[in-house]
């Protein structure tokens, strides 16, 4: 249930360089089931030298709500299980762990001396001279009222039409994965005293869509959902900054001055990691499910919109076209358990090949849509356990001869032509004996 994605950065003074990370298999692993990743350093490290590394881990479904069921007026408490020493195949000279909680309400935490708690930060350490693969389990029981919105399944269908439009349809299954709601739901309490009621429930979801989006619809199986707002920003004064809040994630970075002999500092952030990212103008869709979601409640809906083709389809150097799209869920800060992206290429495309920066499963399908003779090729990409860190661009390359654009109009024109010719022939033919 743990799937780690690591992005490494190397800090020398203030510059950071991305290092390559690859998962590897170690046949002689210790009895706990662990995954191994190799970090390739930029320059080989000689004996006596030191480098600093910063490692980012994101885990999903890691916080366990305890108690598992809460009533409307209670706030949500979760367990965080971890080890005070990081699991490392190397000898640890010195280590300090900082755990940052979102609020000062901490029910309990296991002490492993030396342990200190200041405000929202708990400090474990410094621990000296530990052998490799040593673990010391700790847990922290704290209050966490941020909404645990999890998209169970997201199917995103991107249909490319060379007549100038890309139509995107997304099917969501949303669930509140926090402590289950038990007992009475009182509408009066919910609407009047919101600070103390339903603190862990959520009502609004924000989706970020590309600019110049049109024909946005938001509906479910029953019909259109009328509670949504669309704001399209225009690029006013240069760049805008949007804070990306990471939910359900645990990230820590540690700096290693020397792998063999120096001190290490580990920073552990919990549910409070903010990354300020400069972004271009975007459209924002604020959607509200039909009812506020409490623990264990589900909702499903469909969001669809159209995009102009020239923003996303480009021509590559070897005469192939490619679609440059963002891999991911437009809903900000969502964990997606199973993400499926289907790219429907226009009829007559050949040689589809996706290029995605991280490993995904992919296969091809065929889809028969309007005015299709041979069917359209569909490139299906599947990813499990998707977090917003994965939000990067991916490309799908394909070849398309421009003559195929004429296929549909010619088909329609010839159909009507045949029909009219048949009518004319029928009128003028004399079939009497």
């Amino acid at each position, binding site marked *: 249930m743990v799937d780690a994605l690591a992005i490494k950065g190397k800090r020398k003074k203030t510059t950071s360089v991305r290092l390559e990370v690859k998962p590897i298999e170690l046949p002689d692993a210790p009895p706990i089931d662990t995954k191994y990743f190799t970090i390739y350093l930029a320059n080989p490290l000689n004996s006596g030298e030191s480098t600093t590394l910063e490692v980012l881990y994101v885990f999903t479904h890691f916080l366990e709500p305890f108690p598992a069921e809460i009533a409307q007026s209670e706030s949500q408490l979760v367990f965080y299980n971890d080890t005070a020493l990081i699991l490392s195949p190397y000898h640890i000279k010195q280590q300090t762990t900082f755990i940052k909680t979102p609020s000062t309400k901490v029910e309990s935490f296991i002490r492993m001396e030396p342990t200190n708690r200041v405000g929202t930060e708990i400090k474990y350490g410094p621990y000296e001279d530990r052998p490799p693969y040593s673990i010391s389990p700790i847990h922290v029981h704290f209050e966490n009222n941020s909404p645990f919105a999890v998209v169970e399944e997201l199917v995103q269908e991107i249909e490319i039409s060379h007549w100038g439009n890309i139509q995107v349809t997304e099917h969501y299954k949303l669930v509140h994965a926090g402590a289950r709601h038990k007992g009475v739901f009182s509408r009066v309490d919910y609407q009047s005293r919101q600070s103390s009621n339903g603190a862990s429930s959520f009502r609004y979801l924000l989706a970020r869509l590309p600019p110049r989006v049109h024909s946005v619809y938001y509906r*479910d199986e*029953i019909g259109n959902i009328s509670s949504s707002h669309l704001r399209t920003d225009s690029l006013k004064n240069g760049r805008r900054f949007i804070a990306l809040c990471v939910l359900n994630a645990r990230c820590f970075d540690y700096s290693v001055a020397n792998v063999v002999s120096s001190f290490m500092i580990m920073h552990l952030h919990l549910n409070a990691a903010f990354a300020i990212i400069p972004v271009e103008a975007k459209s924002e869709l604020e959607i509200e499910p039909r009812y506020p979601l409490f623990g264990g409640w589900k909702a499903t809906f469909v969001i669809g919109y159209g995009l102009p083709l020239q923003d996303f389809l480009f021509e590559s150097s070897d005469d192939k076209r490619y679609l440059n799209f963002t891999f991911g869920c437009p809903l900000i800060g969502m964990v997606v358990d199973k993400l499926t992206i289907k790219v429907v290429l226009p009829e007559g495309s050949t040689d589809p090949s996706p290029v995605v920066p991280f490993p995904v499963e992919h296969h091809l399908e065929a889809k028969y849509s309007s005015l299709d003779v041979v069917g359209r090729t569909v490139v299906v990409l599947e990813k499990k356990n998707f977090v917003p860190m994965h939000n990067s661009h991916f490309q799908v390359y394909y070849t398309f001869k421009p003559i195929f654009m004429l296929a549909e109009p010619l088909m329609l024109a010839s159909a009507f032509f045949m029909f009219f010719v048949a009518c004319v022939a029928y009128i003028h033919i004399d079939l009497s004996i």
Partner: protein
Amino acid sequence: MFKVAVTLVVSVGLAVCCAVIAVLIALVASSPTKGWSGRSLSLLDPTYASKYIPIIASVSEHQPPTWPSYFMDINVLAFLVPAGIIACFLPLSDASSFVVLYIATSVYFSGVMVRLMLVLAPAACITSGIALSQAFDVFTGSIKFQLTGASSNTEVDAAETSSSTAESQTDAVKTEKPEETAKNRPSRKSKKKEREHGEKPSTKAKAEKKRLLALPLESSVISLLLLVLLGAFYVVHCVWAAAEAYSAPSIVLTSRSHDGLHVFDDFREAYAWLRHNTDVDDKVASWWDYGYQTTAMANRTVIVDNNTWNNTHIATVGTAMSSPERAAWEIFHSLDVKYVLVVFGGLVGYPSDDINKFLWMVRIGGGVFPHIKEPDYLRDGQYRIDSQATPTMLNCLMYKLSYYRFVETDGKGFDRVRQTEIGKKYFKLTHFEEVR
């Protein structure tokens, strides 16, 4: 040989027919209402339903219509219909007498039940069409008459106009029987020719009469224009009625407030919640108005729905809604109900909520279960929910479910639909709990 076969087949067929007719007569004679169902009996005796079958009386489409609803539905035709009836008598033929009978019976039946306004509509259209075309004839004939002017021409024209008006009269009356028109036209034409040959002096007299009956030119032109305007306004009204009055979806309610259109999507919110957050086998009990909606949108089994065929079952639900909590819980438990759906409009002012329909729940329940007596819920002949309400009313399930913790919304419990404060403000639910 052939004849024997023919007689055999014919006699066997006759015997089978007689047997079937005998069975039918036996069936009809054995039922207490001689084969008439409750709804059709209430057409003959409008008080039948309210005395014996309250569920038929409770449907609002079965009530007698009010005068304004006539004007809303057929508008201008309301005063063109009598003119058309008179025009039908002007020559009384088979076709025109059919139209008169049709309009008379449909007016009677639409006066008994509002939904039979549908039956009145074609008859009203036909008769008012007759009246309008007669009026057009008179005006256009006068215009033609005035414009031609010379006397000999007027004689011929008068003869022509008289026969043409006679013909157009027959045409207007016989809109439904074109074959008969074709048949009659040659006969009328031959009659006209005979008239022309033999009755020239009488046509002269007729022409004289016609000249006196013709209207002045200006007034006929203006009247023509006004008639056209009348038709145009009628079309505008019909389009508006179809768009506003008959196309409003009853599930999504809108209201205009100072900051734009406010949409109340509460029905769909409840149905979506039921669809996603309850088990597939859970049963929902509500009043029958919401049965089909719940089945379609929430995808759950309901106890009673809009197909109000099982009167006893609906009476069971009505009894449960009118009983105190413990008795209601037992009824719902025996029906294996998990969720009870109640519509309450007192907070926003939505008038068709379950408290307003409550009187029918009492009547229908009381019709089958005699321990529900309507006078228990009435104070001075009225259903009240304020401090003057009867204790049975204040204890019944519908009151409790609707007003549970209502007083906490504004401190006083003011019901916007009934425009009073509620009677019992602070109470607890012992057998039910609020889940949505």
